[in-house]
């Protein structure tokens, strides 16, 4: 199950990366069917402003890398990063090490089982577990915010384990700050 998921996301990531390389393709959403979030995940890079060729290349590279940021999945009622997901943590940490101005909102989510109120707590535990894992990778905790949506924002509306396993997750909502925008 786990390896299947990972294979799926590797595939997805490759697909998105290849799209990113296609000329003329401007906007890439990194995650599958990600619902709208309160925190704006992308600071729009001003289109049309006269940028140097280097700026454009940098922007393209940022968008490519953002598409490679992974969602981390969890076991039922657990908030530990499971072994099969550690590679994604390392991958996400690598990207954040490369783009030191990026900040991230870690969104904790649960499947629909259990009560809404308990799941708010569980979602927050997951977000904080992801935060600790990123800190363990050497990324400053100051670059992260955590939020829990409990079971309220499923990425998959179904009612089977195959759906639930995709809803027990932490999403990395990246804000692609530039050195100027961060100040």
């Amino acid at each position, binding site marked *: 199950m786990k390896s299947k998921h990972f294979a799926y996301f590797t595939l997805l990531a490759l697909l998105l990366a290849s799209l990113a390389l296609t000329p003329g393709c401007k906007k890439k959403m990194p995650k599958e069917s990600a619902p709208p979030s309160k925190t704006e995940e992308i600071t729009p890079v001003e289109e049309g402003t006269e940028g140097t060729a280097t700026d454009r290349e940098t922007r393209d590279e940022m968008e490519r890398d953002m598409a490679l940021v992974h969602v981390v999945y969890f076991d039922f009622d657990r908030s530990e990063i499971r072994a099969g997901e550690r590679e994604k943590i390392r991958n996400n940490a690598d990207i954040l090490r490369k783009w030191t101005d990026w900040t991230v909102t870690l969104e904790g989510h649960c499947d629909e089982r259990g*009560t809404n*109120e308990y799941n*708010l*707590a569980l979602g927050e535990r997951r977000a904080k577990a992801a935060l600790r894992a990123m800190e363990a990778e050497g990324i400053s905790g100051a670059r992260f915010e955590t939020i*829990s*949506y409990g079971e*309220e924002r499923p990425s998959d509306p179904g009612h089977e384990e195959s759906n639930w396993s995709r809803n027990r997750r932490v999403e990395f909502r990246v804000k692609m700050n530039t050195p100027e925008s961060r100040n």
Partner: protein
Amino acid sequence: MKKGNSESTLNLSSIRIPVLSIALALCALFVSPALSQVTLRTETSSVGRLDLVVHDFIADGDSAFLADLPSQLRGFVKGDLAYSGYFNLIEPSDLPPDTSIQVKRVGTTFDTLVTFTGAQAARVRGSVSLRWEQATVSISLFQPPLREPTHVQDFSFQPDHARDAAHDIAAWITRMLTGEEGSFTSKIAFVVRTAQNKDLWIMDWDGANAHSLTRDQTLNMSPTWTPDGNALYFTTFREGTADVYRYEIASGRARPFVATPKTDSAPSVSFDGQWVAYASSENGNFEIYRAHADGSGKTQLTFSNRDDTSPSWSPTGRELVFTSDRGGSPQIYQVDFDGVDVRRLSFNGIYNETARWSPRGDLIVFCSRESQAFPKFQIFTIQPGGQRERRLTDGGNKFDPSWSPDGMKIVYTSSEQGKSSIWTCNWDGSNHRQLTFGIEASQPQWGPILPLTRP
């Protein structure tokens, strides 16, 4: 009638004798099998179910003009009484025929007196008249073997508000026959999902008149009532992270109660309305806090390194129950008002969540996953000491139980069908009834008994 707790001791202070004159009461206690059926329930109510017959309401005056108003009104009254949990309704047609005798009274004409045969059930008779668009029903209560009505009362109403009038009439009948204040005029707040958002809704105790309160494109959840029924505290994501707000039902305005940058959630108002308990991750993990109803005087009540949530006050306000996974899985715990003396109450079941204390104080309802072999959540009750677990539901998942204000009924969420829906049952797990249809409804919270606003 007795619900299987024969060894529990009778609490004499909780015995309530039906409202009768002393003479009538004495007479009734000695001779009436109907009244002796009033069981002394120590668990959640002092009354068992009373046998009751609601006879056809008759038209007083031009029956063509009244049309089906008498039968419509009787239907509403009967429905309310059957739903209330206090009565066992018997159809008049199921009774052996009563015999009528004519007696001569001194100084009057002949009166018809009914001799009750067969079941000694209490009787309701109604006579409806209409005058200048104003309907009046005269309700008479009979308690065999007494031949005269023990209570008579007139109720006036506009014919298109027969349902509201029926709540009033049923409340009066229940008060006269049992001495109890039923939940007839209460309302239920709940949550409805539309796409990615959730709104607060409200409906009558029987599911009628359901409508939305909020429509602001965010997640609004976990409503809980103030005891005057004027406001709801609820969890909202309108400012990004979850905060607890207070919503005024009359004006539709909402303002922050507790809004930290972290998650503030799961409010519960004390029975006296003075305090609001809630769960917050303000200091790291989820802990239980309480504050005054205006948000001042915030005090942290629990201190664990795991998560505590879903607080609920006891009727006395001296303690709260809450959900905590400090023991490894979510279980029900109790803590007192000052945050000391934390005790675990639930030991059966691998998951036990969202406990709510009965307004009568004698039971706590919660939802539970019994085991891996029976992985669905079901509704259970236990006594405050943790004894006498009783399962009220079966089948698919059931969540979010909440007591009616008279402690006779429980409202809960069922996700058995595709969309989750709201159901009620009696305190003993009988009389399950679906209240919402066609909307994805959850997190019901039963509000207080409201004063009548009948036109």
